[in-house]
């Protein structure tokens, strides 16, 4: 190792970065653009769900229930006079669900027998349908209590659940999605920055010039790694600043923990990029592999959106090699719950192992050979 040679290589790489604006764009414009887009575009909070209310014979009982739907922030109710037109509206996707009280609803309620509130939802988007079901149950439970109070009785159900949500009491999906997004964006940036850098040298024939220089392979790789690492940390700082100030996500834990873990994670991402680039030696293949192994797995297998526990066991094992999984866990915890050391240490140990694996592998397979 020779510091002077490494410095020279870093200078060369930095000049290349500055000449082709796309690397700077990747590091600074992309996080800005993506975080804005994701932050505003991704939300699982269903509000103002259009829903059809049908009472085949409107009475005082039915309008008391309708009032509950009108008050709810989750629904934008539309009253239909008959079930046929409501079904048509559901078919045409004008409404996401129907609440239907049949003609005998009031009569059954008054005769002290349980009546039926029939709910039909469009099940194509199963997650939204589940959430709508939960909201309908909420309106129903409130209505039962009000009805009991109106008749001067206390509503007694056998088991009464009192729930408390920790770390995100308002269940704001924003607060959990934005830290995860930072991890996804850093995955992308890491892969994009380095996926082409070695392949480009091979394709342009400048790799041979580098090999003819006195620099050792390890120095060449360090010269590639260091500039992009610094760029990556810069974009991490930008992302965290936006998460905290723009999206108002609470940062309960410490900032330094975020950055130490980000440095570890960036090593895995850059290592993976260099590995792809070194093996592929061809920018087209490197680009495809980078897209296939970075963005989509980070999006789907990291636990950022889909719960890892609910995946089949072989897939759960597969998620263990996705570095973004560990970074998502760390960021969600440090942002929302604080410095929970068991979670942080376990996940950063995994990041260290993955980073070491990639970097050692890159160093082993990069030989000064022309084949």
């Amino acid at each position, binding site marked *: 190792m020779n510091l002077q040679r490494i410095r020279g290589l870093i200078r060369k790489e930095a000049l290349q970065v500055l000449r*082709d604006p*796309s*690397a700077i764009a990747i590091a600074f414009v*992309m996080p800005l*653009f*993506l975080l804005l887009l*994701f932050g*505003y*575009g*991704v*939300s*699982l909070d*269903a509000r103002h*769900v259009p829903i059809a209310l049908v009472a085949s014979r409107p009475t005082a009982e039915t309008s008391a229930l309708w009032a509950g739907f009108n008050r709810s922030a989750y629904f934008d109710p539309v009253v239909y006079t008959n079930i046929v037109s409501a079904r048509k509206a559901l078919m045409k996707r004008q409404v996401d669900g129907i609440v239907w009280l049949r003609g005998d609803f009031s009569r059954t309620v008054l005769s002290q027998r*349980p009546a039926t*509130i*029939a709910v*039909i*939802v469009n*099940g194509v*988007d*199963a997650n939204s349908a589940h*959430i709508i*079901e*939960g909201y309908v*149950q909420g309106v129903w439970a409130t209505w039962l209590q009000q009805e009991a109070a109106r008749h001067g009785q206390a509503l*007694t*159900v*056998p*088991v009464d*659940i009192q*729930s*408390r949500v*920790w770390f*995100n009491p308002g*269940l704001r*999906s924003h607060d*959990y999605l934005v830290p995860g997004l930072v991890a996804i964006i850093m995955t992308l940036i890491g892969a*994009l920055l380095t*996926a*082409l850098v070695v392949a480009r040298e091979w394709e342009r024939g400048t790799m041979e010039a580098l090999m003819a220089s006195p620099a050792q392979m390890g120095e060449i790789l360090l010269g590639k790694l260091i500039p992009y690492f610094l760029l990556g940390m810069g974009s991490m700082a930008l992302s965290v600043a936006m998460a905290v100030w723009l999206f108002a996500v609470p940062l309960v834990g410490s900032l330094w923990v975020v950055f130490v873990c980000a440095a570890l994670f960036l090593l895995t991402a850059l290592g993976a990029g260099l590995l792809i680039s070194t093996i*592929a030696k061809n920018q*087209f293949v490197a*680009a*495809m592999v980078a*897209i*296939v192994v970075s*963005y989509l797995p980070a999006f*789907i*297998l990291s636990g950022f959106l*889909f*719960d890892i*526990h*609910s995946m089949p066991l072989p897939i759960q094992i597969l*998620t263990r090699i996705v570095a973004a999984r560990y970074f998502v866990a760390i960021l*969600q*915890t440090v942002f*929302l*719950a604080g410095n929970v050391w068991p*979670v942080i240490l376990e996940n950063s140990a995994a990041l260290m192992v993955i980073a070491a694996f990639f970097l050692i592998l890159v160093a082993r397979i990069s030989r000064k050979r022309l084949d």
Partner: protein
Amino acid sequence: MRWYRVRALVVKEFLALLRDKASRMVLIGPPILQLLVFGYAATFNLVHVPIVIYNQDSGGASRALIARFQGARSFRVVRFLTTDRRLASILSDKEALAVIRIDSRFSQDLALHRSAHVAVWIDGRNSNTALLALNDINAITQSFNAHWAASHGWPHPKALVTMRAWFNPNLHSRWFIVPGIVGLLTLVVAMLVTGLSVAREREAGTFDQLLVTPLEPFEILLGKALPGFLIAGLEATAIILVAVPWFGVPLVGSLLALYLGLFLFLLAAIGVGLAISSACATQQQGLLGVFLFLVPSIILSGFATPIANMPKAVQYLTYLNPLRFFLVILRGVFLEGDGVSVLWNQYIPLALIGVACMAMATWLFRHRLS
């Protein structure tokens, strides 16, 4: 326009794409593999999520309630607590998603016809999982309540809610996600094939050679677009052929409607890919452009998170996204049994986007020339 010239270019493009073993592999292998992995991974249904039960009651009623949690597919009881000492760390260390505490007077309260109390503490770091788990816990409790009330002579509630879901009666989120993955992977393949194709020629210096051939600019673009159509169309077919039997997703609508949608979607996607490629000087810029298009179009398509939840301004933005329309077509044909006549309001915007993108690609191609 001369067909034989275009055909020669198409053959050359195919050779360039498929001659190299590595690029052949990355084009064909990953989409099918990703369909299988993501099809299993991308689910919003909770399965065997770890929970912990802290039962302070010793009666039979609490055991009956616990048995319902143990029997539920959504949950897996990983531990029974006897003290509340480690309660906080169980949640913060992610040992379990939720802790369910049954009050010490649970059985006694129920025997006296009083409401018994159960407290649920839940980890809200993943708010969607927390919300779904709360819904499932409520559903389990309600079915316990209904059963208990009927068998122990409690007054019944005034009305009961019955739920029915159209098109997806068991609310499998996989039925929603798998058609989405078909659209997503088709987009990725189309962008990969076309997004770097012109930039590659520019970087390799063969672009000038293309220009001195008798081919007109439009013919060159057509020669670049057709391989994309063929490869992405074939891969989409392969993905659909795997998705339907493997994941058991119903395909109830008309294939004509599906393929009309696929054709228009590919027109738009390939138009965008060629436009990016024509505008870029190097493959790195091309890759960046592909990413800058791919990532937002997946996020703003309604693939995983509903468009209706987005702010109004962002919702208008999604009308520029071809994948948004294609996903409606895919889900409509797969699950709702839609035909061409129902989906025309998706075809028209898709066709407009496609024609506009192709025109833009042609313009950028000429513009770069001069």
